[in-house]
């Protein structure tokens, strides 16, 4: 890379975002000014899990002070069409319930008034008559023939079943020494960003266009879904993203139905309409990760080598399949064999709908569900074959020399050295220390276990992965989908000031800082010389359907596009400077704000002077050069191919590696799981800013702990929602998050020019599996459901005590 030797890129530059956020000068959606006359909305929600709407009487509400409109499903039907979904199935979702409600909390009507308080007052006067119906809540029961159907026309709640076969699984199971089988449940949960949804929508009746400000996170493949629902071309549905957003973790994709709802309200009232979700609404109805039941079985040799694998995954998406669902079921498809070299695998993917909140994006996105099953299975293989768990992991790992490695299901793993990562993690006495702690605890009669989890972490999704839900013939008909386009524009002004417009949405990841590092590095400027403007506006900025911040696309995607745009500007400036300095362009270097001759550094011009040439004196430019100093880097990696005719798919561009080990102790009195020591080893390729990278890992670790031990969305058998406040839904505080030791190894990705991989989801995937394995090891039990709350641990300990009693009875019997 010659003179691209890093100075600021790869260092822990402090975040440029922080001073404003620390001073109360953030600009979150609800902080931004709205036009005079903006109205405020309140959503009336269903108290029933499943019911017919008989009548909505809005007459009295409309007479209340300050009320402009009460909008119902009838209005929504008039002004919009149902949202498009990936399947051709008769599942119609509008932005308000039409004729029927299908989950507790489903929006039924929207009251629009002068202010929020008045809208809530009037909501109490809206009379909705329901005829309650039987609800399908449990996913297994919902699949049965006699279950109440959510969508009558679909004739079943199990709306998609796809079977995939790679290699010779039958042969593998026939020649195996043993079969090991397990059923694993993954519960519903969310990561509840601290800022809830915010939408401000306006309608221009002359242009027939909508303008919506929302803390939407993308992917912008949802933009056409919204525009189609509102029956307008995309250019007449302008979406603007505020410069700050109070966290997202996948959840803020699902603001999109409300963006359409507020748009309709603006059209009906003729005024801008603002809606701010409150926490009660958020917990009840915003979004959840899908719950999944996985039956997983391995064919193994007696030394623990996995010859073949079968997975039957039933995923519960709640009442509707919202775009781009069922993403979590398909996003990990290429990596369904995880970190292991398993040539033969069968997968069955089933999608079921139930009378619960719709499931959607959530950090980890299918990874936690997959790895809880896969890593629990690997532990079971060790237990059932009486082998060491770590030995079984090591025996099955993909060999370091085989990268780039093609998995059975079609993922092309870019780089890695899993063996050395595990050596590093277990080395320096870490594993020995855990074993010492375990042995001491067990000798004292306490419950202590060691867990491991090995996880491959995908980064930047192939936008074509979801099309694998269709058969090859259906895909052929629909047109192939693939790729992921990232776009960043770098602009240089007449004085040489540099601004950058990336295609991401802000959620707190530090994009502004990292992009500044990349562009500053390439142009020989300082980080503070670069202004990054992240307020994505679909009417003015460059964007593709892949735009947004999700599935770790920033580092493998947008960061690369920033690098490309900066290089394009750099090449252009080098040519301009070369002409004026009388040297060849390849003799030009960019150092300390100067553009100079490499051979004679005194032959130099200030960066701003070179840039100024294009603005002030275009006649001085090299022949044929366009004077624009605005370059868009467009990154579209060729590895993201469409699914092959035999359903193999490279689901992501980069594949990082995480290896965790931990020790937990279980208190037999309080039934609490205490994480005694936790070590997490990461290989995310080249790190662009180690401080920010580790910050992402720490955040994911905390969320992994939350999923393993605390957070769960619970519904009762009638579909009533039981986790409706932060007193019922336990978000860990500082007291619940144990210390963690992070280790890093860097095997750069050969598929991106920066060598960097996605890294912010790995611990969401690894921690639940690692802790579940440690609990299983501590108690000697097979079936672990998460979160391992005191109630669940109580159940497991009862099982342990019954087993011990049985053993002592048997032992006593033997003695007689």
């Amino acid at each position, binding site marked *: 890379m010659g003179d691209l030797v890093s100075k600021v890129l790869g260092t822990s530059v*402090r*975040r440029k*975002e*922080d*001073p404003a*956020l*620390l*001073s*109360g*000068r*953030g600009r*979150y959606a*609800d*902080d931004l000014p709205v036009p005079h006359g903006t109205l405020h909305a309140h959503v009336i929600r269903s108290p029933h899990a499943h019911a017919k709407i008989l009548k909505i009487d809005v007459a009295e509400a409309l007479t209340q002070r300050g009320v402009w409109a009460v909008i119902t499903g009838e209005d929504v039907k008039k002004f919009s069409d149902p949202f498009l979904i990936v399947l051709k199935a008769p599942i119609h979702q509008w932005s308000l319930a039409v004729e029927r409600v299908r989950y507790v909390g489903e929006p039924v009507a929207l009251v629009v008034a002068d202010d929020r*308080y008045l809208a809530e007052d009037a909501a109490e006067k809206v009379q909705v008559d329901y005829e309650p119906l039987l609800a399908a809540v449990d996913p297994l029961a919902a699949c049965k023939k006699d279950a109440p159907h959510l969508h009558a026309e679909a004739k079943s709640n199990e709306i998609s079943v796809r079977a995939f076969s790679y290699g010779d699984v039958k042969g593998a199971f026939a020649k195996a020494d043993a079969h090991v089988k397990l059923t694993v449940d993954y519960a519903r949960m969310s*990561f*509840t*960003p*601290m*800022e*809830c949804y915010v939408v401000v929508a306006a309608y221009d009746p002359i242009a027939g266009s909508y303008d919506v400000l929302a803390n939407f996170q993308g992917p912008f493949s949802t933009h056409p879904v919204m525009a189609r629902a509102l029956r307008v071309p995309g250019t007449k549905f302008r979406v603007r993203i505020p410069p*700050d*957003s*109070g*966290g*997202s*973790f996948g959840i803020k994709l699902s603001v999109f139905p409300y963006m359409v709802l507020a748009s309709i309200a603006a059209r009906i009232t003729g005024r801008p309409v603002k809606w701010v979700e*409150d*926490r*009660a609404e958020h917990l009840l109805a915003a979004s959840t990760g899908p719950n999944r039941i996985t039956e997983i079985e391995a064919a193994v040799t007696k030394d623990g080598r996995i010859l073949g694998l079968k997975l039957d995954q039933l995923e519960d998406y709640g009442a509707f399949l919202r775009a781009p669902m069922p993403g979590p079921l398909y996003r990990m498809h290429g990596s369904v064999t995880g970190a292991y070299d398993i040539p033969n695998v069968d997968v069955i993917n089933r999608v079921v709908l139930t009378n619960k909140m719709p499931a959607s994006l959530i950090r980890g996105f299918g990874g936690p569900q997959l790895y809880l099953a896969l890593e629990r299975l690997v532990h079971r293989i060790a237990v059932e074959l009486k082998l060491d768990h770590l030995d079984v992991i090591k025996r099955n790992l993909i060999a370091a020399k085989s990268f780039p490695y093609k998995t059975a299901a079609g993922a092309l793993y870019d780089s890695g050295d899993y063996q050395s990562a595990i050596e590093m993690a277990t080395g320096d006495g870490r594993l020995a220390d855990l074993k010492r702690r375990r042995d001491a605890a067990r000798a004292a009669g306490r419950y202590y276990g060691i867990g491991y989890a090995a996880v491959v972490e995908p980064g930047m999704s192939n936008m074509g992965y979801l099309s694998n839900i269709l058969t090859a013939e259906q895909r052929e008909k629909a047109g192939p989908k693939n790729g992921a386009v990232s776009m960043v524009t770098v602009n240089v002004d007449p004085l040489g000031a540099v601004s950058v417009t990336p295609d991401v949405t802000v*959620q*707190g*990841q*530090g994009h502004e800082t990292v992009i500044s590092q990349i562009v500053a590095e390439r142009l020989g400027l300082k980080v503070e010389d670069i202004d990054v403007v992240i307020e994505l506006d679909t009417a003015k900025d460059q964007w593709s359907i892949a735009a947004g911040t999700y599935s770790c696309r920033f580092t493998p995607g947008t960061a690369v596009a920033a690098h490309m745009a900066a290089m394009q500007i750099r090449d252009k400036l080098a040519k301009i400077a070369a002409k004026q300095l009388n040297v060849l362009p390849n003799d030009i270097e960019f150092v300390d704000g100067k553009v100079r001759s490499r051979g004679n550094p005194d032959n130099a011009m200030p960066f701003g002077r070179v840039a100024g040439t294009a603005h002030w004196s275009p006649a001085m430019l090299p022949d044929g050069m366009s004077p624009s100093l605005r370059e868009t880097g467009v990154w579209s990696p060729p590895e993201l191919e469409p699914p092959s005719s035999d359903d193999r798919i490279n689901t992501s561009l980069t594949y990082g590696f995480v290896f965790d080990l931990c020790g937990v102790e279980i208190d037999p009195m309080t039934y609490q799981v205490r994480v005694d020591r936790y070590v997490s080893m990461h290989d995310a390729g080249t790190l662009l800013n180690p*401080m*920010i990278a*580790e*910050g992402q890992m*720490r*955040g994911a*670790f*905390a*969320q992994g702990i939350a999923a393993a031990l605390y957070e769960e969305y619970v519904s009762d058998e009638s579909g009533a929602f039981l986790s409706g*406040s*932060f*007193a019922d839904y336990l*978000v860990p*505080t*500082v*007291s619940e*998050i144990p*210390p*963690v030791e992070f280790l890093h190894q860097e095997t750069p990705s050969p598929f991106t020019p920066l060598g960097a991989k996605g890294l912010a989801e790995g611990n969401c995937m690894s921690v639940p599996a690692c802790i579940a394995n440690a609990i299983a090891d501590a108690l000697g039990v097979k079936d672990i459901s998460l979160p391992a709350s005191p109630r669940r641990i109580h159940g497991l300990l009862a099982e342990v005590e019954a087993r011990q009693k049985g053993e002592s009875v048997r032992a006593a019997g033997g003695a007689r």
Partner: protein
Amino acid sequence: MRRVNRDQRTRINLTLNGRAVSADTEPRMLLSDFLRHALGATGTHVGCEHGVCGCCTVLIDGTAGRSCLTLAVQVEGRAVRTVESLASADGKLNALQQAFQNNHALQCGFCTPGILMSFTDYLAKNPKPSEAEICEVLSGHLCRCTGYAGIVAAIKEATGSK
């Protein structure tokens, strides 16, 4: 004490960040909404409106409290301090804020103002807290981004125990 009736708009006078301010409100308006929408002090955030998350924490007469559990009328004649008061007028961060930046103690920044205000109160009373005491106070706040380690490190740095 002044009596106010339901639905009656009332003028509230208070000191906000050292400056006398006033605005009209209904008796039922929450202090958090009043600060943000009537007085334009949007640095105070609303995260749960049931007192759990701590995003909306402000100082009322020097004591940290949840502005989402306080009515605007309750601050009549009192001094309210919010996150906007911490940095100097030219934007220079105070020691606690600077320690947050140094230790990557925030990501999205939504919960941060509340945490800063809780510790502005607490550190005034206990300038040299132990790590356990820091965690005790911090456990009154939810942060979904950071996993808290950076926040603890920042407060330790600000109090000279790091």
